[in-house]
């Protein structure tokens, strides 16, 4: 299994960068998705939403996108809630983001920076 | 454009070859930097390079600390100052520290007035030891018959370690432990008797203090001399006569045979005899053995066995090759065997009342005399062995000044020696002596030119080929056990083939033995001693062992045939397989 060239090394690196991507802490360039995971969130399926987000981000090959669980965001009526923080843009809080809406969220907002109006709870939410 | 290096020492400019040490460079312009652990025996590939005593330190411009001049090589443009207050302070501190950890028993120390540390303390004007504290406290090792090891006097100069490991390749001594309590000792701090030490005594020969000295038997000799019931006779090895004069201020290499004999006689010995006589005896037996082996397809090569350190070396290190050495005892042992039988008979003396004392240049012979194989009729062949230094001390005790003694001859019956017997004392001498006899025995012709220059000189390993009739006798010679090892390894591997090999454990042969006056690395002294022996050989009318009239007599009247039954009983021995530790 010898690595015989610098390119080979780079490929291996790319493959494994995902595994450690959770540890990147660069607030200025990372997109952060905060998922409310308090009791009501979990009860409404936030855990599944989070896992689906991870799956979709990987499937889309997106880099520099972090998914962080947080406690109660306060909007219990619209759980599961996901807050999207893209550097340079306003924070957007979405809910309810059920598992079936995850793909859309990723494609429209994360990739295309398009706000999904019907899913928005509050547009000018202060950054967490 | 010369490729010498120019530097300044004490404001004087000096030019030397690259690779020269600052110490040597200074010496070349008459500046003596004190040293202690340093020892340069470069003729024997021995330079003690530990630079650990820190006495020879000097100031070098641009260098933060003081530098040890004995290992610091010169550099172009170097500016050295050897005796600034700073260098002197460094030197003094090192010696004061050594003295603070040294027993203060100079009065009764074996090296009183002969100790390098003592001399240094005086040279450096040390009259006060500021740093008083704990001292190392080890027991003296008097386990062996040859060497006394007193670790408390060790100054960690490592000369003995260098000698034992690099020159003699015995590997007995090494630094053991760490920190303040470190000493040079055998592995596990075992007593020497329990190791594979050969007692070659070269460590004793280089030790600057009394950490390593010979086991002193002079008291016992005095006791024997004072006992009216004892018939005490003494024999002197060939190497003694070329060196003992040095203990009395004479030039190295002054032949003092006659004076030595007179001095010993004055001490009260009932007979003063010559080991060279027994050397001739050894040749009779050993040449017979060589011829016997050649003619009967016996084991070859034959190795000379008169050196007990060498015998012990082969017993420990090459136990599988014990059929190679000659079975002959060493000369002084043969002497003892003949003295307690032939001489005793002829003079009506009860051998039980006899005390045979050997003066030897060697400390290994002290242990040799106690070997259980070297007895006849349950009595040791030789009773007491003292070194050249001990003999000189006894002569001084008797108030005699050797250099002013008259020249007299050895006593008869065992005092005559041929020139061949004399040269036993130097490397190459034994085999040259054997060749002189073997030649005439094998060819039946007279050997005209008895001097074999190929066998002479201080080179570590020599080889020579002598045409004896149809036979091309191949001879190998080694002195120093490291060279012996090389030679033996080459025989084992089949690289070299010899008929006869002479090995002496001490560099230079017996003249450089562990019991001789300290030469401290000066190979000029060794050369001078060698030349003295060759000169005595040249001055003799009889130069071949088998022509020695007393030898002829002892065979005719007592022993019978050389290599015969009686000869075997008295003059031959066996060897013991020993383990290596």
């Amino acid at each position: 299994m010898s690595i015989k060239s610098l390119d080979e090394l780079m490929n291996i690196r790319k493959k494994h960068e995902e595994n450690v991507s959770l540890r990147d802490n660069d607030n200025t360039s990372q997109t952060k998705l905060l998922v409310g995971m308090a009791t009501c969130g979990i009860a409404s399926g936030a855990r599944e939403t989070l896992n689906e987000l991870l799956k979709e981000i990987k499937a889309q090959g997106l880099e520099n996108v972090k998914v962080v669980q947080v406690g109660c965001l306060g909007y219990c009526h619209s759980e599961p809630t996901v807050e999207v923080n893209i550097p340079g843009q306003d924070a957007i809080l979405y809910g309810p983001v059920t598992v079936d809406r995850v793909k859309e969220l990723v494609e429209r907002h994360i990739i295309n920076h398009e706000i999904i109006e019907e899913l928005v709870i509050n547009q000018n939410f202060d950054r967490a | 454009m010369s490729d010498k290096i120019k530097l300044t020492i004490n404001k004087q400019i000096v030019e030397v070859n690259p690779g020269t040490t600052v110490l040597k460079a200074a010496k070349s312009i008459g500046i003596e930097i004190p040293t202690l652990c340093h020892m340069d025996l470069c003729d024997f590939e021995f330079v003690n390079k530990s630079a650990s005593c820190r006495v020879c330190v000097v100031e070098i411009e641009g260098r933060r600390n003081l530098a040890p001049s004995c290992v610091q090589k010169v550099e172009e443009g170097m500016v050295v100052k050897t005796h600034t207050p700073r260098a002197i302070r460094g030197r003094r501190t090192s010696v004061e520290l050594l003295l603070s950890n040294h027993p203060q028993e100079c009065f009764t120390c074996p090296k009183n007035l002969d100790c390098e540390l003592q001399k240094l303390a005086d040279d450096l004007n040390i009259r006060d030891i500021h740093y008083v504290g704990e001292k190392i406290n080890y027991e003296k090792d008097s386990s062996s018959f040859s060497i006394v090891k007193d670790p408390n006097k060790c100054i960690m100069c490592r000369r003995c370690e260098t000698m034992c490991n690099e020159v003699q390749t015995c590997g007995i001594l090494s630094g053991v432990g760490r920190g303040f309590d470190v000493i040079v000792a055998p592995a596990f701090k075992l007593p020497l008797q329990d190791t594979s030490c050969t007692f070659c005594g070269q460590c004793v020969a280089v030790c600057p203090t009394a950490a390593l000295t010979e086991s002193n038997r002079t008291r016992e000799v005095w006791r024997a001399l004072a006992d009216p019931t004892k018939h005490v006779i003494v024999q002197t090895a060939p190497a003694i006569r070329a060196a003992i004069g040095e203990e009395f201020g004479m030039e190295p290499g002054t032949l003092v045979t006659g004076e030595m004999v007179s001095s010993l006689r004055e001490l009260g010995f009932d007979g003063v005899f010559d080991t060279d006589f027994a050397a001739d005896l050894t040749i009779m037996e050993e040449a017979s053995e060589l011829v016997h082996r050649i003619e009967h397809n016996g084991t070859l090569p034959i190795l000379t066995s008169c050196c007990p350190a060498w015998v012990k070396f082969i017993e420990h290190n090459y136990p599988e090759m014990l059929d190679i050495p000659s079975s002959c005892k060493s000369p002084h042992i043969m002497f003892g065997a003949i003295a307690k039988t032939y001489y005793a008979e002829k003079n009506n003396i009860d051998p039980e009342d006899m005390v045979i004392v050997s003066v030897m240049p060697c400390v290994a012979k002290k242990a040799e005399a106690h070997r259980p194989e070297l007895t006849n009729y349950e009595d040791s062949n030789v009773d007491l062995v003292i070194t050249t230094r001990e003999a000189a001390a006894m002569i001084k005790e008797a108030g005699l000044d050797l250099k002013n003694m008259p020249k007299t001859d050895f006593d008869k019956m065992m005092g005559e020696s041929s020139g061949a017997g004399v040269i036993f004392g130097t490397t190459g001498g034994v085999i040259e002596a054997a060749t002189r006899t073997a030649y005439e025995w094998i060819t039946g012709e007279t050997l005209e030119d008895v001097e074999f220059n190929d066998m002479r000189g201080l080179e570590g390993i020599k080889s020579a080929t002598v045409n004896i009739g149809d036979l091309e006798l191949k001879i190998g010679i080694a002195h120093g056990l490291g060279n012996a090892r090389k030679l033996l390894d080459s025989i084992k591997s089949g690289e070299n083939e010899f008929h006869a090999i002479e090995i002496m454990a001490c560099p230079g042969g017996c003249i450089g033995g562990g019991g001789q006056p300290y030469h401290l690395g000066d190979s000029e002294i060794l050369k001078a001693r060698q030349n003295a022996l060759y000169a005595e050989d040249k001055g003799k009318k009889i130069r071949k062992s088998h022509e020695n009239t007393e030898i002829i007599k002892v065979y005719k009247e007592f022993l019978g045939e050389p290599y015969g039954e009686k000869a075997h009983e008295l003059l031959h021995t066996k060897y013991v397989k020993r383990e290596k530790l």
Partner: protein
Amino acid sequence: MSIYRLNIMVCGGTGCMASDSQGIVDNFKDILKEKGYDQEVQVLKTGCFGFCEQGPIIKIHPDNVFYVKVTPEDVEEIVDEHIIKGRRVERLLYEDPDLKEKINEQSDMSFYKPQLRIALRNCGLINPEDIFEYIAYRGYEALGTVLKNQSPEDVINTMIQSNLRGRGGGGFPTGLKWKFANKAPGDEKYIICNADEGDPGAFMDRSILEGDPHSVLEAMAIAGYAIGAETGLIYIRAEYPLAIKRLEIAIDQAKEQGLLGKNIFGSDFNFNIKLKYGAGAFVCGEETALIASTEGLRGEPRNKPPFPATSGFKGKPTNVNNVETLANVAPIILNGPEWFNKIGTEKSNGTKVFALAGAINNVGLVEVPMGTTLREIVYDIGGGIRGGKAFKAVQTGGPSGGVITTKDLDTPIDYDSLQAIGSMMGSGGMIVMDEDTCMVSIAKFYLDFTQEESCGKCTPCRIGTKRIFEYLEKLTEGKATMDDLHNLKELCESVKDTALCGLGQTAPNPVLSTMEYYWDEYVAHVNGHCPTKECKALLSYTIDAEKCIGCTACVKKCPVDCISGERKEPHVIDEAVCIKCGACYDVCPVDAVIKP
């Protein structure tokens, strides 16, 4: 492969392991599995975070939450609250003692803010037992780049330009060392990594080896390429079993990936690394003694010149580098020497790892740019003196170093500035001392160490350090005279001047340094008095003048007549004569005698 949404990094350095961080790991794995979260949460052991005072430490990613003083018993709560419900466990967060508030993120802590982790870059970030995590963070890219695009001379020039200096304490320019070895004639050369780290209290190298072993392996290979060596040896002290284990795993993994062995990255370059264990001798940290030990001989230093670059291991050209020095190599290659030049001071570029210990609040491992002042380290990073006591001095350089007092607290740390004030950088040990520390005892502590660790080869060190120690013992027992004090100083200067190797040459430093700044304390000891009351033998009985009623009961009782005082006047004990029998204490009716 499961997609983890959480990484829990648990500190696996020896310090936290000693506090059962393994138990934390085990509990996490068990409880997460039990509760069905093991496919979503990855638990990993990582290297030292450095904030050892607060250990055991765990860090949760991507939440970037830093929990301190965690015990295995806390794990269940962390899982229930944080992992499952996303709620921080407040009581396990670090509380800033000045701001009195809990701090979530590492980068907001005053302990971490001034730090710049280059040598320690991966410690706390990656799992040291997984080569792919090292690769994910640009591991082995430097080696690959060098082998593909650069000549050995290019590499050496980069190192020279970077101005990296030996981090073991010598401060010798690394690039120059590589150049000498490269230029030395011969085609059998060696790279040796000095992992013997013997200074008491120093654990910089240990943390790097435990937390990021591959950084050392990669650097050794790069060095090998630069000087033309095919064999690397790591001389590691046997007292570091965890570091040894991590190195062995790393070497095996590197071999498996072809990053060690023949034709690395498909080039002509071969390189292999072997481990050699030390056997408990501090002196084997000295490079020539280390080489002797590696050859199977007594670990005794040799006279220099010749230097190892021309004649080292087996008499061949050898380059010996310290672990921390090597840990800097890959970043320099990747980021370029100019990047390194911008960090630190003019003559000392880059950072230095320090092991902070002693009377300081935040004991641990820190890495700061050169030029950071001692004040910043002691107060900002270190959190000030424990127990609110006053700062007295800081000792750097271990047994070879000296003390730095208040007046030099604003000295920016670099090799030359520390030397100029009588101390030295050393390998990075930094012991902080407060007002209750007796400086004579400190000197004695260090000499106790050096005289025992002396190899015994040269006179000044073998006997000299012993005598120096004996003087210090006399001082702390109140048996020394002023003459002794002067002789001690002279002896120290002489030993420094004449000893054969660094151990002996620097052994007197603690004494000379403390003498320079605290001569009064030494004189006090001569007079039988220890100002900090640390030296038990010098403690004395005193009489409280306020309480004393002048009854003369003690005066009459004293067996050596050392108490003076008239009736109704406060009595006084003459400390010089007092034999500390306590008879006065026993007889005083009003408890006016103060026992030491």
